[in-house]
Protein backbone atom coordinates (compact mmCIF):
# COMPACT_ATOMS: atom_id res chain seq x y z
CA UNK A 1 0.00 0.00 0.00
CA UNK A 2 1.44 3.36 -1.02
CA UNK A 3 1.52 5.83 1.88
CA UNK A 4 0.58 9.36 0.87
CA UNK A 5 0.95 11.01 4.26
CA UNK A 6 3.35 9.82 6.92
CA UNK A 7 3.77 11.67 10.22
CA UNK A 8 6.41 10.81 12.77
CA UNK A 9 6.14 11.92 16.39
CA UNK A 10 4.39 15.05 15.19
CA UNK A 11 3.99 17.56 18.02
CA UNK A 12 2.62 21.09 18.05
CA UNK A 13 2.52 23.17 21.21
CA UNK A 14 0.95 26.55 21.82
CA UNK A 15 2.56 27.65 25.06
CA UNK A 16 1.56 24.99 27.57
CA UNK A 17 -1.15 23.52 25.37
CA UNK A 18 -0.08 20.50 23.37
CA UNK A 19 -2.45 20.73 20.44
CA UNK A 20 -0.86 17.62 18.87
CA UNK A 21 1.25 15.16 20.78
CA UNK A 22 3.56 12.51 19.25
CA UNK A 23 1.24 11.79 16.37
CA UNK A 24 2.22 8.80 14.26
CA UNK A 25 -0.14 8.48 11.37
CA UNK A 26 -0.22 7.24 7.82
CA UNK A 27 -2.75 7.94 5.11
CA UNK A 28 -2.89 5.55 2.15
CA UNK A 29 -2.95 6.87 -1.39
CA UNK A 30 -6.48 6.70 -2.75
CA UNK A 31 -8.41 6.42 0.49
CA UNK A 32 -10.83 8.65 2.35
CA UNK A 33 -9.21 9.03 5.74
CA UNK A 34 -11.34 10.32 8.59
CA UNK A 35 -9.92 12.25 11.51
CA UNK A 36 -12.51 12.05 14.24
CA UNK A 37 -12.54 13.86 17.57
CA UNK A 38 -14.38 16.41 19.73
CA UNK A 39 -13.80 20.16 19.51
CA UNK A 40 -10.31 21.05 20.66
CA UNK A 41 -8.91 17.57 19.95
CA UNK A 42 -6.28 18.97 17.58
CA UNK A 43 -7.84 18.19 14.19
CA UNK A 44 -7.52 21.64 12.67
CA UNK A 45 -4.01 22.06 14.02
CA UNK A 46 -3.03 18.80 12.35
CA UNK A 47 -4.44 20.01 9.04
CA UNK A 48 -2.66 23.35 9.40
CA UNK A 49 0.66 21.62 9.92
CA UNK A 50 0.08 19.20 7.05
CA UNK A 51 -0.89 22.03 4.72
CA UNK A 52 2.22 24.14 5.56
CA UNK A 53 0.30 26.94 7.31
CA UNK A 54 1.84 26.14 10.68
CA UNK A 55 5.24 24.70 11.51
CA UNK A 56 5.44 21.68 13.81
CA UNK A 57 7.13 22.11 17.20
CA UNK A 58 8.84 18.76 16.66
CA UNK A 59 8.47 15.63 14.59
CA UNK A 60 7.79 15.53 10.86
CA UNK A 61 5.18 15.15 8.15
CA UNK A 62 5.86 13.88 4.66
CA UNK A 63 3.27 14.20 1.94
CA UNK A 64 3.84 12.36 -1.32
CA UNK A 65 7.40 11.81 -0.11
CA UNK A 66 8.12 15.50 0.54
CA UNK A 67 8.74 17.12 3.91
CA UNK A 68 6.10 19.79 4.63
CA UNK A 69 8.63 22.17 6.17
CA UNK A 70 11.70 21.73 3.98
CA UNK A 71 9.93 21.05 0.70
CA UNK A 72 6.78 23.06 1.24
CA UNK A 73 6.57 24.24 -2.38
CA UNK A 74 6.39 20.69 -3.69
CA UNK A 75 3.78 19.80 -1.07
CA UNK A 76 1.70 22.87 -1.90
CA UNK A 77 1.43 21.81 -5.53
CA UNK A 78 0.00 18.43 -4.55
CA UNK A 79 -2.64 19.44 -2.06
CA UNK A 80 -5.92 21.31 -2.01
CA UNK A 81 -7.37 22.60 1.24
CA UNK A 82 -10.90 23.50 2.28
CA UNK A 83 -10.80 25.11 5.68
CA UNK A 84 -13.28 24.76 8.48
CA UNK A 85 -14.48 28.33 8.03
CA UNK A 86 -15.36 29.87 4.71
CA UNK A 87 -12.12 31.20 3.26
CA UNK A 88 -13.27 32.63 -0.04
CA UNK A 89 -13.03 36.34 -0.83
CA UNK A 90 -16.58 37.50 -0.20
CA UNK A 91 -16.17 40.59 -2.35
CA UNK A 92 -15.79 38.39 -5.40
CA UNK A 93 -17.88 35.98 -7.43
CA UNK A 94 -17.48 32.21 -7.38
CA UNK A 95 -15.72 32.27 -10.73
CA UNK A 96 -13.35 35.06 -9.64
CA UNK A 97 -12.42 33.13 -6.53
CA UNK A 98 -11.66 30.08 -8.65
CA UNK A 99 -9.64 32.17 -11.06
CA UNK A 100 -7.66 33.61 -8.16
CA UNK A 101 -6.72 30.14 -6.90
CA UNK A 102 -5.81 29.01 -10.38
CA UNK A 103 -3.60 32.08 -10.89
CA UNK A 104 -1.84 31.49 -7.57
CA UNK A 105 -1.04 28.01 -8.83
CA UNK A 106 0.28 29.21 -12.19
CA UNK A 107 -2.46 27.71 -14.33
CA UNK A 108 -2.31 29.40 -17.73
CA UNK A 109 -5.22 31.44 -19.04
CA UNK A 110 -6.89 29.02 -21.48
CA UNK A 111 -6.37 26.01 -19.24
CA UNK A 112 -7.76 28.06 -16.37
CA UNK A 113 -10.97 28.86 -18.22
CA UNK A 114 -11.47 25.25 -19.27
CA UNK A 115 -10.94 23.82 -15.80
CA UNK A 116 -13.15 26.39 -14.11
CA UNK A 117 -16.07 25.60 -16.43
CA UNK A 118 -15.51 21.90 -15.94
CA UNK A 119 -15.38 22.13 -12.15
CA UNK A 120 -18.43 24.38 -11.96
CA UNK A 121 -20.29 21.78 -13.98
CA UNK A 122 -18.94 19.02 -11.73
CA UNK A 123 -20.55 20.53 -8.61
CA UNK A 124 -23.56 21.99 -10.41
CA UNK A 125 -22.70 25.61 -9.74
CA UNK A 126 -22.51 26.77 -13.34
CA UNK A 127 -25.55 29.01 -13.03
CA UNK A 128 -24.12 30.61 -9.87
CA UNK A 129 -20.67 31.17 -11.32
CA UNK A 130 -21.11 34.94 -11.45
CA UNK A 131 -22.94 35.30 -8.14
CA UNK A 132 -21.19 36.97 -5.25
CA UNK A 133 -20.06 34.36 -2.73
CA UNK A 134 -22.09 35.95 0.05
CA UNK A 135 -25.38 35.39 -1.77
CA UNK A 136 -24.98 31.58 -1.89
CA UNK A 137 -26.47 29.06 0.53
CA UNK A 138 -24.21 27.25 3.00
CA UNK A 139 -24.03 24.10 0.91
CA UNK A 140 -23.23 26.05 -2.24
CA UNK A 141 -20.51 28.03 -0.45
CA UNK A 142 -18.93 24.76 0.64
CA UNK A 143 -19.06 23.34 -2.88
CA UNK A 144 -17.60 26.59 -4.22
CA UNK A 145 -14.76 26.35 -1.69
CA UNK A 146 -14.09 22.79 -2.74
CA UNK A 147 -13.88 23.52 -6.45
CA UNK A 148 -11.78 26.62 -5.83
CA UNK A 149 -9.24 24.39 -4.14
CA UNK A 150 -9.30 21.92 -7.02
CA UNK A 151 -8.26 24.21 -9.87
CA UNK A 152 -4.67 22.95 -9.77
CA UNK A 153 -5.85 19.32 -9.76
CA UNK A 154 -4.35 18.28 -6.40
CA UNK A 155 -3.78 14.60 -5.69
CA UNK A 156 -4.82 15.13 -2.11
CA UNK A 157 -7.71 17.12 -0.69
CA UNK A 158 -8.02 18.23 2.93
CA UNK A 159 -11.52 18.93 4.20
CA UNK A 160 -11.79 20.38 7.70
CA UNK A 161 -15.25 19.68 9.16
CA UNK A 162 -16.86 20.01 5.73
CA UNK A 163 -20.48 19.58 6.82
CA UNK A 164 -20.68 21.66 9.99
CA UNK A 165 -23.64 24.00 9.73
CA UNK A 166 -25.20 22.29 6.71
CA UNK A 167 -28.73 20.93 6.70
CA UNK A 168 -29.29 17.19 6.25
CA UNK A 169 -29.88 17.44 2.52
CA UNK A 170 -26.83 19.59 1.83
CA UNK A 171 -24.78 17.22 3.97
CA UNK A 172 -25.84 14.17 1.95
CA UNK A 173 -25.04 16.02 -1.24
CA UNK A 174 -21.58 16.87 0.03
CA UNK A 175 -20.96 13.28 1.02
CA UNK A 176 -21.78 12.24 -2.54
CA UNK A 177 -19.32 14.82 -3.83
CA UNK A 178 -16.59 13.50 -1.54
CA UNK A 179 -17.23 9.95 -2.74
CA UNK A 180 -17.19 11.06 -6.37
CA UNK A 181 -13.92 12.96 -5.94
CA UNK A 182 -12.40 9.97 -4.25
CA UNK A 183 -13.49 7.52 -6.93
CA UNK A 184 -12.05 9.93 -9.51
CA UNK A 185 -8.68 9.40 -7.86
CA UNK A 186 -8.30 12.09 -5.16
CA UNK A 187 -6.99 10.98 -1.76
CA UNK A 188 -9.05 12.66 0.93
CA UNK A 189 -8.22 13.63 4.50
CA UNK A 190 -11.29 14.83 6.29
CA UNK A 191 -11.91 15.85 9.87
CA UNK A 192 -15.24 15.59 11.57
CA UNK A 193 -16.85 15.33 14.95
CA UNK A 194 -19.85 13.53 13.45
CA UNK A 195 -19.70 9.80 14.01
CA UNK A 196 -22.07 9.00 11.17
CA UNK A 197 -19.99 11.05 8.77
CA UNK A 198 -16.84 9.11 9.56
CA UNK A 199 -18.76 5.83 9.26
CA UNK A 200 -20.45 6.80 6.03
CA UNK A 201 -17.43 8.11 4.18
CA UNK A 202 -14.15 6.88 5.51
CA UNK A 203 -12.23 3.74 4.71
CA UNK A 204 -10.06 4.30 7.78
CA UNK A 205 -10.53 6.45 10.83
CA UNK A 206 -8.12 7.99 13.32
CA UNK A 207 -9.62 9.04 16.61
CA UNK A 208 -8.08 12.07 18.34
CA UNK A 209 -8.44 13.07 21.95
CA UNK A 210 -6.53 15.92 23.63
CA UNK A 211 -3.98 15.96 20.83
CA UNK A 212 -3.34 12.24 20.95
CA UNK A 213 -4.30 9.51 18.52
CA UNK A 214 -6.18 6.94 20.57
CA UNK A 215 -7.30 4.59 17.79
CA UNK A 216 -6.55 4.04 14.12
CA UNK A 217 -8.20 1.46 11.87
CA UNK A 218 -11.15 0.74 9.60
CA UNK A 219 -14.51 1.50 11.25
CA UNK A 220 -15.32 -2.22 11.16
CA UNK A 221 -12.06 -3.28 12.83
CA UNK A 222 -12.48 -0.63 15.52
CA UNK A 223 -15.97 -1.90 16.25
CA UNK A 224 -14.78 -5.54 16.21
CA UNK A 225 -12.10 -4.79 18.78
CA UNK A 226 -14.74 -3.35 21.07
CA UNK A 227 -17.44 -5.91 20.27
CA UNK A 228 -19.85 -5.56 17.37
CA UNK A 229 -22.96 -5.60 19.56
CA UNK A 230 -23.74 -3.14 22.34
CA UNK A 231 -26.20 -3.76 25.18
CA UNK A 232 -27.47 -0.68 27.03
CA UNK A 233 -29.02 -1.19 30.43
CA UNK A 234 -30.52 1.21 32.92
CA UNK A 235 -30.27 0.49 36.65
CA UNK A 236 -32.60 2.41 39.04
CA UNK A 237 -33.39 4.89 36.21
CA UNK A 238 -30.05 6.52 36.94
CA UNK A 239 -27.11 5.68 34.77
CA UNK A 240 -26.89 3.83 31.50
CA UNK A 241 -24.42 0.95 31.42
CA UNK A 242 -22.85 -0.33 28.24
CA UNK A 243 -21.64 -3.85 27.61
CA UNK A 244 -20.04 -5.03 24.37
CA UNK A 245 -20.25 -8.47 22.77
CA UNK A 246 -18.70 -10.17 19.78
CA UNK A 247 -22.08 -11.25 18.40
CA UNK A 248 -25.82 -11.22 19.02
CA UNK A 249 -25.88 -14.65 20.67
CA UNK A 250 -23.47 -13.57 23.36
CA UNK A 251 -25.45 -10.39 23.90
CA UNK A 252 -28.75 -12.22 24.15
CA UNK A 253 -27.54 -14.71 26.70
CA UNK A 254 -26.14 -11.85 28.78
CA UNK A 255 -29.49 -10.07 28.71
CA UNK A 256 -31.40 -13.22 29.67
CA UNK A 257 -29.30 -13.61 32.81
CA UNK A 258 -29.68 -10.01 34.03
CA UNK A 259 -31.27 -9.44 37.47
CA UNK A 260 -34.93 -8.29 37.31
CA UNK A 261 -34.28 -4.72 38.61
CA UNK A 262 -32.32 -3.86 35.45
CA UNK A 263 -34.59 -2.00 33.07
CA UNK A 264 -34.69 -0.60 29.52
CA UNK A 265 -32.55 -2.98 27.62
CA UNK A 266 -31.37 -1.99 24.16
CA UNK A 267 -29.43 -4.36 21.96
CA UNK A 268 -27.87 -2.62 18.94
CA UNK A 269 -24.83 -2.53 16.67
CA UNK A 270 -21.81 -0.85 18.22
CA UNK A 271 -20.60 2.34 16.54
CA UNK A 272 -17.58 4.62 16.61
CA UNK A 273 -19.17 6.69 19.35
CA UNK A 274 -18.94 3.60 21.60
CA UNK A 275 -15.32 3.16 20.63
CA UNK A 276 -14.63 6.75 21.58
CA UNK A 277 -16.54 6.61 24.85
CA UNK A 278 -14.77 3.44 25.92
CA UNK A 279 -11.36 4.94 25.20
CA UNK A 280 -11.94 8.31 26.81
CA UNK A 281 -14.95 8.16 29.10
CA UNK A 282 -16.41 11.07 27.13
CA UNK A 283 -18.74 11.48 24.20
CA UNK A 284 -17.43 12.87 20.93
CA UNK A 285 -20.11 15.56 20.99
CA UNK A 286 -19.05 16.80 24.43
CA UNK A 287 -17.24 20.10 24.45
CA UNK A 288 -14.80 20.03 27.23
Amino acid at each position, binding site marked *: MEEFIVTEKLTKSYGNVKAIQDLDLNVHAGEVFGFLGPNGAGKTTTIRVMTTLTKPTSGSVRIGGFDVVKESDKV*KRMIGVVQQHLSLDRDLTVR*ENMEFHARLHHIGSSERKRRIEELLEYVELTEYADSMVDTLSGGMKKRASIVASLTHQPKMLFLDEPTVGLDAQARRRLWDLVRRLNSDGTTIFLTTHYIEEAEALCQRVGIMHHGQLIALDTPLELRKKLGLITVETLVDNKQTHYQYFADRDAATSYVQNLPPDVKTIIIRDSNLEDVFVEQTGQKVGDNQ
Partner: protein
Amino acid sequence: MITVFNDIYSVLWVDLRFLRRHWLSTLVISLINPLLYLVAFGYGLGSGINFGGVGYLEFVIPGIIALTSMSTSFSGSSSKLHIDRLFYRSFDACLMSPISLFSIVVGKALIGLVRGLLSSVAILAVGVVLSPVLLVTPLFVLVLFTSCFVFAMLGVLIGLVMNTHHAMGTFSNLVMLPMTFLSGTFFSLNQLPDALKAALYVLPLTHSSASLRAAALGQPFPWLSFVAFLGFGLFFFVCSMVVLKRSSA
Protein backbone atom coordinates in the same frame (compact mmCIF):
# COMPACT_ATOMS: atom_id res chain seq x y z
CA MET B 1 11.85 36.65 -12.82
CA ILE B 2 8.81 36.47 -15.06
CA THR B 3 7.13 34.19 -12.54
CA VAL B 4 7.76 36.77 -9.80
CA PHE B 5 5.99 39.49 -11.80
CA ASN B 6 3.28 37.04 -12.63
CA ASP B 7 2.84 36.10 -8.97
CA ILE B 8 2.80 39.70 -7.82
CA TYR B 9 0.12 40.40 -10.39
CA SER B 10 -1.91 37.40 -9.23
CA VAL B 11 -1.96 38.79 -5.69
CA LEU B 12 -2.86 42.26 -6.97
CA TRP B 13 -5.45 40.84 -9.35
CA VAL B 14 -8.07 39.97 -6.70
CA ASP B 15 -7.88 43.42 -5.16
CA LEU B 16 -8.12 45.03 -8.58
CA ARG B 17 -11.32 43.08 -9.25
CA PHE B 18 -12.79 44.66 -6.15
CA LEU B 19 -11.54 48.13 -7.07
CA ARG B 20 -13.01 47.79 -10.56
CA ARG B 21 -16.45 47.36 -9.05
CA HIS B 22 -16.11 50.08 -6.44
CA TRP B 23 -13.61 52.57 -7.82
CA LEU B 24 -15.92 55.57 -7.82
CA SER B 25 -17.10 55.30 -4.23
CA THR B 26 -13.56 54.42 -3.10
CA LEU B 27 -12.22 57.51 -4.84
CA VAL B 28 -14.92 59.89 -3.63
CA ILE B 29 -14.58 58.78 -0.02
CA SER B 30 -10.81 59.14 -0.11
CA LEU B 31 -11.09 62.73 -1.38
CA ILE B 32 -13.37 64.07 1.33
CA ASN B 33 -10.69 64.69 3.96
CA PRO B 34 -8.07 66.24 1.65
CA LEU B 35 -10.67 68.56 0.13
CA LEU B 36 -11.81 69.65 3.58
CA TYR B 37 -8.19 70.37 4.54
CA LEU B 38 -7.79 72.34 1.33
CA VAL B 39 -10.81 74.51 2.06
CA ALA B 40 -10.19 74.93 5.79
CA PHE B 41 -6.44 75.54 5.68
CA GLY B 42 -5.80 76.73 2.15
CA TYR B 43 -8.64 79.23 1.99
CA GLY B 44 -9.94 79.67 5.51
CA LEU B 45 -6.92 79.85 7.73
CA GLY B 46 -4.07 80.65 5.43
CA SER B 47 -5.42 83.03 2.82
CA GLY B 48 -3.41 85.95 4.15
CA ILE B 49 -0.19 84.14 5.00
CA ASN B 50 2.94 84.23 2.90
CA PHE B 51 5.90 81.84 3.18
CA GLY B 52 9.10 83.37 1.87
CA GLY B 53 7.49 84.57 -1.32
CA VAL B 54 5.22 81.55 -1.72
CA GLY B 55 1.50 81.97 -1.09
CA TYR B 56 0.02 79.66 1.54
CA LEU B 57 -2.19 77.91 -0.99
CA GLU B 58 0.81 77.01 -3.16
CA PHE B 59 2.61 75.94 -0.01
CA VAL B 60 -0.11 73.76 1.37
CA ILE B 61 -1.24 71.93 -1.79
CA PRO B 62 1.88 69.72 -2.06
CA GLY B 63 1.47 68.94 1.64
CA ILE B 64 -2.11 67.89 1.07
CA ILE B 65 -1.06 65.74 -1.88
CA ALA B 66 1.53 64.10 0.37
CA LEU B 67 -0.99 63.35 3.10
CA THR B 68 -3.48 62.05 0.54
CA SER B 69 -0.86 59.67 -0.80
CA MET B 70 -0.13 58.59 2.73
CA SER B 71 -3.65 57.97 3.98
CA THR B 72 -5.12 56.36 0.86
CA SER B 73 -2.12 54.13 0.16
CA PHE B 74 -1.91 53.10 3.78
CA SER B 75 -5.58 52.29 4.16
CA GLY B 76 -5.74 50.83 0.65
CA SER B 77 -3.31 48.08 1.50
CA SER B 78 -3.88 47.69 5.24
CA SER B 79 -7.65 47.43 5.34
CA LYS B 80 -8.01 44.82 2.59
CA LEU B 81 -5.17 42.73 3.94
CA HIS B 82 -6.64 42.94 7.43
CA ILE B 83 -10.04 41.77 6.16
CA ASP B 84 -8.48 39.01 4.04
CA ARG B 85 -6.52 37.70 7.01
CA LEU B 86 -9.02 37.91 9.82
CA PHE B 87 -12.52 38.04 8.38
CA TYR B 88 -12.52 36.43 4.95
CA ARG B 89 -9.52 34.19 5.75
CA SER B 90 -8.83 34.25 2.04
CA PHE B 91 -5.24 35.26 2.76
CA ASP B 92 -4.50 31.64 3.63
CA ALA B 93 -5.00 30.82 -0.03
CA CYS B 94 -1.93 32.95 -0.81
CA LEU B 95 0.06 31.31 1.98
CA MET B 96 -0.87 27.81 0.83
CA SER B 97 0.01 28.47 -2.80
CA PRO B 98 3.51 27.97 -4.20
CA ILE B 99 4.19 31.71 -4.63
CA SER B 100 6.91 33.39 -2.59
CA LEU B 101 6.44 35.58 0.47
CA PHE B 102 8.17 38.35 -1.49
CA SER B 103 5.46 38.23 -4.16
CA ILE B 104 2.75 38.26 -1.51
CA VAL B 105 4.17 41.29 0.31
CA VAL B 106 4.77 43.29 -2.86
CA GLY B 107 1.46 42.23 -4.41
CA LYS B 108 -0.45 43.28 -1.31
CA ALA B 109 1.38 46.63 -1.31
CA LEU B 110 0.54 47.33 -4.94
CA ILE B 111 -3.18 47.72 -4.32
CA GLY B 112 -2.26 50.51 -1.89
CA LEU B 113 -0.06 52.09 -4.54
CA VAL B 114 -2.87 51.94 -7.11
CA ARG B 115 -5.45 53.41 -4.77
CA GLY B 116 -3.01 56.01 -3.46
CA LEU B 117 -2.11 57.16 -6.96
CA LEU B 118 -5.73 57.33 -8.00
CA SER B 119 -6.62 59.69 -5.14
CA SER B 120 -3.37 61.69 -5.21
CA VAL B 121 -3.72 62.34 -8.93
CA ALA B 122 -7.29 63.52 -8.37
CA ILE B 123 -6.13 65.95 -5.68
CA LEU B 124 -3.21 66.98 -7.86
CA ALA B 125 -5.65 67.82 -10.65
CA VAL B 126 -7.61 70.03 -8.28
CA GLY B 127 -4.34 71.54 -7.02
CA VAL B 128 -3.05 72.40 -10.48
CA VAL B 129 -6.29 74.18 -11.30
CA LEU B 130 -6.23 76.19 -8.06
CA SER B 131 -2.54 76.91 -8.10
CA PRO B 132 -1.05 76.93 -11.60
CA VAL B 133 2.48 77.55 -10.28
CA LEU B 134 2.76 73.86 -9.27
CA LEU B 135 5.36 72.01 -11.34
CA VAL B 136 4.48 68.47 -12.27
CA THR B 137 7.97 67.35 -13.24
CA PRO B 138 9.28 63.77 -13.63
CA LEU B 139 10.91 64.26 -10.23
CA PHE B 140 7.54 65.16 -8.70
CA VAL B 141 5.96 62.07 -10.26
CA LEU B 142 8.80 59.90 -8.96
CA VAL B 143 8.37 61.26 -5.44
CA LEU B 144 4.60 60.79 -5.56
CA PHE B 145 5.03 57.18 -6.71
CA THR B 146 7.55 56.54 -3.98
CA SER B 147 5.35 58.13 -1.37
CA CYS B 148 2.39 55.93 -2.30
CA PHE B 149 4.53 52.80 -2.34
CA VAL B 150 6.26 53.44 0.99
CA PHE B 151 2.97 54.10 2.79
CA ALA B 152 1.36 51.14 1.06
CA MET B 153 4.21 49.05 2.47
CA LEU B 154 3.51 50.46 5.94
CA GLY B 155 -0.10 49.40 5.35
CA VAL B 156 1.01 45.84 4.59
CA LEU B 157 3.07 45.73 7.76
CA ILE B 158 0.26 47.03 9.94
CA GLY B 159 -2.30 44.80 8.18
CA LEU B 160 -0.09 41.83 9.02
CA VAL B 161 0.68 42.79 12.60
CA MET B 162 -2.67 43.96 13.94
CA ASN B 163 -4.94 41.11 14.95
CA THR B 164 -8.09 42.98 15.85
CA HIS B 165 -10.23 45.66 14.34
CA HIS B 166 -9.69 47.67 17.48
CA ALA B 167 -5.90 47.55 17.15
CA MET B 168 -6.18 48.81 13.57
CA GLY B 169 -8.31 51.75 14.71
CA THR B 170 -5.92 52.54 17.53
CA PHE B 171 -2.96 52.65 15.18
CA SER B 172 -4.83 54.99 12.83
CA ASN B 173 -5.77 57.35 15.63
CA LEU B 174 -2.50 57.23 17.51
CA VAL B 175 -0.01 57.27 14.66
CA MET B 176 -1.54 58.10 11.30
CA LEU B 177 -3.74 61.00 12.37
CA PRO B 178 -1.08 62.92 14.32
CA MET B 179 1.36 62.32 11.48
CA THR B 180 -1.11 63.96 9.10
CA PHE B 181 -0.90 67.24 11.00
CA LEU B 182 2.65 67.26 12.35
CA SER B 183 4.74 66.42 9.32
CA GLY B 184 5.15 69.87 7.86
CA THR B 185 2.12 69.31 5.70
CA PHE B 186 0.32 72.45 6.86
CA PHE B 187 3.18 74.54 8.21
CA SER B 188 6.88 74.99 7.66
CA LEU B 189 9.11 73.05 10.02
CA ASN B 190 11.49 76.03 9.96
CA GLN B 191 9.12 77.87 12.28
CA LEU B 192 9.68 75.28 14.99
CA PRO B 193 12.33 75.02 17.73
CA ASP B 194 15.19 72.75 16.66
CA ALA B 195 14.41 69.94 19.12
CA LEU B 196 10.82 69.63 17.95
CA LYS B 197 11.89 69.90 14.35
CA ALA B 198 14.37 67.05 14.80
CA ALA B 199 11.70 64.95 16.49
CA LEU B 200 9.35 65.39 13.55
CA TYR B 201 11.96 63.99 11.18
CA VAL B 202 11.27 60.54 12.59
CA LEU B 203 7.93 60.68 10.81
CA PRO B 204 8.09 59.36 7.24
CA LEU B 205 5.47 61.85 6.06
CA THR B 206 7.81 64.73 6.98
CA HIS B 207 10.24 63.50 4.34
CA SER B 208 7.62 62.75 1.75
CA SER B 209 5.98 66.13 2.17
CA ALA B 210 9.30 68.04 2.11
CA SER B 211 10.35 66.22 -1.05
CA LEU B 212 7.04 66.68 -2.81
CA ARG B 213 6.89 70.37 -1.92
CA ALA B 214 10.41 71.07 -3.13
CA ALA B 215 9.72 69.25 -6.39
CA ALA B 216 6.39 71.01 -6.91
CA LEU B 217 7.68 74.49 -6.17
CA GLY B 218 11.02 74.13 -7.94
CA GLN B 219 12.98 74.60 -4.71
CA PRO B 220 16.32 72.84 -3.97
CA PHE B 221 15.48 69.15 -3.67
CA PRO B 222 16.13 67.57 -0.22
CA TRP B 223 17.87 64.43 -1.46
CA LEU B 224 18.79 63.40 2.03
CA SER B 225 15.14 63.41 3.05
CA PHE B 226 14.22 61.45 -0.04
CA VAL B 227 16.83 58.80 0.71
CA ALA B 228 15.68 58.64 4.34
CA PHE B 229 12.17 58.15 3.04
CA LEU B 230 13.30 55.25 0.85
CA GLY B 231 14.93 53.85 3.98
CA PHE B 232 11.55 53.88 5.71
CA GLY B 233 10.11 51.92 2.80
CA LEU B 234 12.86 49.33 2.99
CA PHE B 235 12.37 49.04 6.73
CA PHE B 236 8.62 48.46 6.36
CA PHE B 237 9.30 45.87 3.66
CA VAL B 238 11.84 43.93 5.72
CA CYS B 239 9.58 43.98 8.79
CA SER B 240 6.66 42.70 6.71
CA MET B 241 8.76 39.81 5.40
CA VAL B 242 9.88 38.91 8.91
CA VAL B 243 6.34 39.06 10.32
CA LEU B 244 5.00 36.90 7.51
CA LYS B 245 7.78 34.33 7.92
CA ARG B 246 7.09 34.11 11.63
CA SER B 247 3.34 33.79 11.18
CA SER B 248 3.71 30.08 10.43
CA ALA B 249 5.68 29.34 13.62
